[in-house]
């Protein structure tokens, strides 16, 4: 029988019992839809992790103090990661060449009649412009594709120096909008403002910035900022010494592991951490490098894909068994039809082709429907997951092929069974 005629026969076979075909398809539709959705969730999670750590350079070790929950609030675990820990590190640790330190705190900023409650960021000198290098913001109207340089981020005035950081100088650099809010267009550099009642000289204003990603522009407030030397910020904003965020730069990228060990040894010594009874250090800090984070992420992704494969196998097997069940019933019901077809000259392979094409068409249609349903469910999953799932383009052909294979594999047995009928008995079947 020609392919076209087999196709018509198969389509007729499916349309003979539409409800049954729809119910059969349901298993595959659900299977494929869940594969598409879960893959999108995994893909979204991966993108989020990548985005979060994109700024972390491959020569950097991110050091953070551990925290624990006490009386319903987060408190430092063990000793805090102090300003001094960071400041002395380049001198004490052989492989670390410099460190960037930062703290964030809330403060009241005043100039004349204008008072602003805002987040104040304390930084070391290189960290101020390091923030600009992270690549998430750019001066407004910066030509696309042109390389950014540090100078472009200063509107006028200057950034603070290492000497000013070490000397707890009362200086600050304002964000563009903050300067506007406090000075209403008047010159701000050289003026004195009050930060938590302490005097502070404005030495520079940051250029008007926007996020590089246009989608985030409307909700970002990158121009509302006040930067000051970290030492000054600690003095003015805190009653007791805060834990700082610390990034250490390693001189030689090929010796990252060694550098990490050195940093750990240095901090253990400073925090008086000894081996416990099991010979382990109970560190009050954690170290991560880009490689660690990406490695952990890859591991998580791998576990996730195993789970996903298991899920896909289970749901598609259920769908496949559904197909097999329905096709077996269908073959039995149509025994006489099979007998008639054999009597007028259908070969076994014609019968196999007819039933196989039926299941293949059914599973292909279910696969396509499942893909559509999966894509429609993705925004819904986003609400539940509070993440941003991203459709993985590969999941479409893959899940379609798997659906097709499921139909083919589970349709094979009923089709072969049909083809194996004895024509005489099939013709007599009641």
């Amino acid at each position, binding site marked *: 029988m020609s392919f076209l005629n087999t196709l018509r026969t198969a389509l007729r076979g499916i349309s003979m019992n539409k409800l049954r075909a729809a119910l059969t398809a349901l298993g595959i539709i659900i299977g494929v839809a869940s594969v598409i959705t879960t893959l999108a969730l995994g893909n979204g999670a991966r993108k989020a992790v990548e985005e979060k750590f994109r700024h972390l350079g491959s020569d950097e070790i991110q050091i953070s103090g551990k925290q624990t929950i006490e009386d319903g609030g987060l408190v430092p675990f063990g000793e805090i990661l102090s300003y001094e820990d960071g400041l002395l590190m380049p001198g004490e640790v052989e492989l670390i060449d410099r460190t960037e330190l930062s703290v964030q705190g809330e403060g009241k900023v005043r100039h004349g009649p204008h008072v602003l409650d805002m987040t104040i960021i304390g930084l070391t000198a290189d960290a101020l412009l390091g923030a600009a290098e992270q690549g998430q913001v750019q001066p407004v109207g910066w030509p696309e594709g042109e390389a950014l340089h540090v100078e472009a981020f200063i509107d006028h005035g200057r950034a603070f120096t290492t000497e000013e950081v070490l000397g707890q100088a009362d200086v600050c650099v304002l964000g563009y909008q903050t300067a506007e809010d406090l000075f209403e267009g008047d010159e701000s550099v050289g003026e004195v403002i009050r930060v938590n009642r302490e005097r502070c000289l404005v030495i520079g204003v940051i250029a008007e910035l926007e996020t590089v990603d246009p989608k985030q522009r409307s909700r970002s407030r990158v121009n509302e900022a006040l930067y000051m030397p970290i030492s000054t910020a600690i003095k003015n904003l805190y009653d007791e010494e805060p834990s700082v965020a610390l990034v250490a730069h390693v001189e030689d990228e090929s010796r990252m592991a060694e550098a990490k060990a050195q940093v750990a040894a240095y901090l253990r010594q400073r925090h008086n951490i000894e081996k416990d009874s099991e010979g382990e250090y109970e560190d009050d800090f954690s170290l991560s490098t880009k490689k660690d984070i990406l490695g952990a992420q890859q591991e998580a992704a791998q576990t996730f894909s195993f789970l996903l494969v298991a899920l896909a196998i289970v749901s598609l097997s259920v769908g496949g068994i559904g197909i097999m069940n329905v096709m077996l019933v269908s073959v039995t019901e149509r025994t006489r039809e099979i*007998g008639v077809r054999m*009597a007028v*000259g259908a070969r076994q392979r014609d019968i196999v082709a007819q039933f196989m094409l039926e299941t293949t068409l059914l599973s292909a249609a279910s696969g396509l429907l499942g893909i559509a349903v999966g894509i429609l469910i993705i925004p819904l999953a986003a609400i539940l997951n509070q993440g941003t799932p991203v459709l993985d383009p590969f999941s479409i052909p893959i899940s379609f092929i798997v659906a097709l294979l499921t139909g083919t594999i589970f349709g094979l047995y009923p089709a072969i069974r049909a083809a194996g009928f004895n024509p005489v008995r099939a013709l007599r079947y009641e």
Partner: protein
Amino acid sequence: MKAKRSSKHNLIETHDLTKVYSMGETEVRALQGVDIRVEKGEFIALMGPSGSGKSTLMHLLGCLDTPTEGRYVLEGQDVSTLSNDERARVRNRHIGFVFQTFNLLSRLSALENVALPLLYRREAEGALQRASEALSRVGLEERTTHRPAEMSGGERQRVAIARALVVDPALILADEPTGNLDSTTGTTIMHLLRSLNEEGRTVVLVTHDAQVADFAHRTLLMCDGRMV
């Protein structure tokens, strides 16, 4: 396929044709050494009480089943040892079936039912044209788009005869073709079969109705799996 040549005039020759069915422990010897000859253009009636083996013989002659022992030569070719696919080809090319229960496919129109055997050939072109000619031959040119459920028993049997005719078969096998019809319609069908025979087609008819058997040139009687 090796073709053993036999008498030129014999369309059908069987030699010691035996069919044994095993039903669990017991063996049923449905055919016990049947030798028949049917010449081209003959109209044969096969009669006998139920259980005599006439249906089994019919199935063997129609290449729907294979004999346990013995030979069956159709048009000079030994078809008793053919594979499933080869037998399907013989049924498709050389044999037209007419069944007591018509055995039309309910989802297909009369025309599509008649065209069905041609669709199982490589060259399906012109199938509908040939099917429509076959329907005209049995007087149903007005009913081509009707489905079996929309037709009377006599009309359905005529569609079945058209389906048998469409492949231009060497042999038409009719198994109780009037069994489900009233006598008037039955007679019409028998007249149709006889006119096809008069056009040169060989017809083998299984029946237990002597009046129906009277349409044939020759009646073969069977009993307990043997010719009598």
